[in-house]
């Protein structure tokens, strides 16, 4: 850090002064915490570091990722590294991509109040309420699309008055959509068959046995598919 402006933050109620350019995660470490829980990819993909915080003088509770949120003066914070959301047991290949499947696996789906607390609590700014509404309509593909950027941090679950398991409902929908509601790639299935039936065996054996000079020559003169 070239210039260091130190600001007060409160980690689980205790005050520390940290450089203001840090993320919450950096600030926790700066304060001396060696993290085991509440840390993962450090790049906003894994959902390990969900953090609840409030700023001095403002009662509003915010939710952010510790790795993706810069500290602010007077920030009171605590991490919620784990939340015990229910996951239904299923085998994808035994399911049908229907509303009945969703409701039989997650009966509480029908108890969603539509209050929108989930949407307000999402650190990815996803429209969680909207995908829950789509789930209640049985629009599985819509759930899949709206929930795609979910990192499964569980914060919507933590705030939900109806005790829904939104991220688990969403991944079920995405897997149903991916497997059953989009056409399979035919060119892919054909290529798998071609490889299995030995179409490329001779050519692969030939190129593997090729002297390096010849291989280099072939590489340097290979044609490149146009954009």
């Amino acid at each position: 850090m070239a210039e260091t402006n130190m600001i007060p933050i409160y980690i689980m109620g205790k005050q520390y002064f940290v450089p203001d350019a840090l993320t919450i995660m950096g600030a926790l470490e700066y304060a001396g915490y060696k993290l085991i829980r509440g840390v993962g990819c450090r790049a906003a993909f894994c959902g390990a570091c969900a953090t609840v915080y409030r700023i001095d003088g403002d009662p509003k509770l915010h939710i952010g990722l510790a790795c993706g949120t810069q500290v602010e003066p007077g920030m009171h914070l605590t991490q919620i590294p784990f939340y015990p959301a229910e996951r239904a047991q299923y085998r994808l290949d035994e399911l049908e991509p229907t509303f009945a499947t969703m409701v039989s696996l997650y009966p509480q789906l029908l108890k969603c109040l539509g209050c929108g607390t989930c949407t307000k609590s999402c650190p990815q700014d996803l429209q969680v309420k909207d995908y829950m509404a789509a789930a209640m309509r049985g629009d599985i593909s819509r759930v899949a699309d709206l929930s795609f950027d979910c990192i499964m941090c569980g914060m919507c679950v933590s705030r939900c008055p109806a005790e829904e398991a939104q991220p688990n409902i969403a991944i079920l929908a995405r897997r149903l959509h991916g497997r059953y509601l989009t056409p399979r790639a035919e060119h892919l299935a054909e290529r798998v068959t071609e490889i299995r039936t030995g179409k490329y065996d001779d050519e692969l054996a030939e190129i593997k046995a090729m002297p390096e000079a010849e291989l280099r020559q072939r590489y340097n003169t290979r044609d490149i598919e146009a954009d």
Partner: protein
Amino acid sequence: MNDGYTPGMRESIKKVEATRPARLQETWPMMTPVEKQEVLRKFHPDYKPEGMRELRVGPAKGLRTPHELADLLEGHSMLRNEELDLEQVDFETDVLIIGGGGAGSAAALLAREEGAQVLVVTKLRHGDANTMMAQGGIQAADKPEDNPVIHYLDVMGGGHFTNDPDLVEALVRDAPEAIAWLESLGCMFDKEPDGTLITIHGGGTSRKRMHSARDYSGAEIMRTLRDEVRSYPDEIEVIEFAPAIELIMDDKGQAAGAVLLNLETGEHYIVRAKTTIIATGGSGRLHYQDFATTNHYGATGDGVILAYRVGADVCFLDTMQYHPTGAAYPTQIVGLLVTEKVRGLGAQVCNIEGNQFVYPRETRDVEASAIIRECVDADKGIQTPSGFVGVWLDSPMIDLIHGPGTIEKELPAMVRQFARFGVDIVKDPILVYPTLHYQNGGVSLKADGATSIPNLYGAGEISGGVHGRNRLMGNSLLEVTVYGRRAGRAAGQRCKEVSLGQLTLAHVGQWEDALGEAGVEAEIESPLILPDYTRHGR
């Protein structure tokens, strides 16, 4: 909250905008083979002699590797002063999988298919892995104008013809099947309405064979595999926050399990296993040559160290991958990945004057070296207030080429990442600099995932040989899937034939002796398990 770019950066961005219309028509030439060698030799971190040293002990004695890794490979066992009763077995299993990322999860599913009982142990949470962070995509030759032979040639050329041909053949041969398997598990790959997979170029590809799931490709694969693993709770047990800290052998010289450490209580667990798969990933968190990294918090090279200590062969540990485009700004995200998909979609790389200086899709080692040259040698990089330097990755070009809305649709994670710190990559270019990304080498494997130690397998970034001295984009998610499946299948079959002898940690004592004989005086213990960032504020 950051207000985006500084006035100095704005000046330079104006130049980037000014050259953009002309650059849209311009194709910068690829380097010749001689030029590539030249830029690698002069500017690639692997070629800095002071960054590495020769190993003094173990099966690869004499092999050069970065100091940070050498320190750990030559480290002491955490159990050197412990008296563990190996008769008190806490977990008994057919297949032990160390690592709960993409490779470990794929292996667990295939071992289960073979009828094995599986135990997955992982340092942090199941799915906390570099797989989760891979954005750009996964390669497979499944289009009519492509085939596995062309894929093979690209992989070999990308690795400078140093790759193990058997491993490359397995990679390209299994690739379409790997994609089909993921598709059947419900992975939402980007597709045309008729089901045709959408594929684009990556650095070093001669065909468009990069499959993606927006820019959450790895996350989509990882969460799907994890959810599938969770569908078999009776056959696959997962223990989180319990890294392996030493392999256990038996008196017949076979791998026979591991000692785990409960990270939260400090308790040790003894696992007895008929076969063991190491799938602990890479080592970016060792910050070779002080580079920032794209890697997961747990990427500390543990598996290579455990395998090396029981005598497993390793290779290519003198080559690391520096991804050409890590974030150089804003400060909070320095080093994080800016996916190669940005260049795959047409964005060019420009210097402070808004001019191109490199073909945007050279192989990663060449592209990274050219960017370092532009900043260090030509002095045409852009300085940041916190002391970093970078060049522009002209992301707004993407919408001009493919139509408005493309960036938000194809790169939602990137858009969100930068928006969190006040930068809009739809309107403005991204400041980038190479970042430590991938461990090209590792434990030597055979094509079924076997290591040189009986009953010990490996898969994923832990391994060496598939990529030779340089990996192409999209071949790591592929390697994770292909070799996870191969190792899982082989270990799941092999465990039926294994008869274990008496468990032993004799190698720990022998290792101590070897360290003494080699004159290693450092008191470093390994594996590292987690980096220590306390009070550094990285």
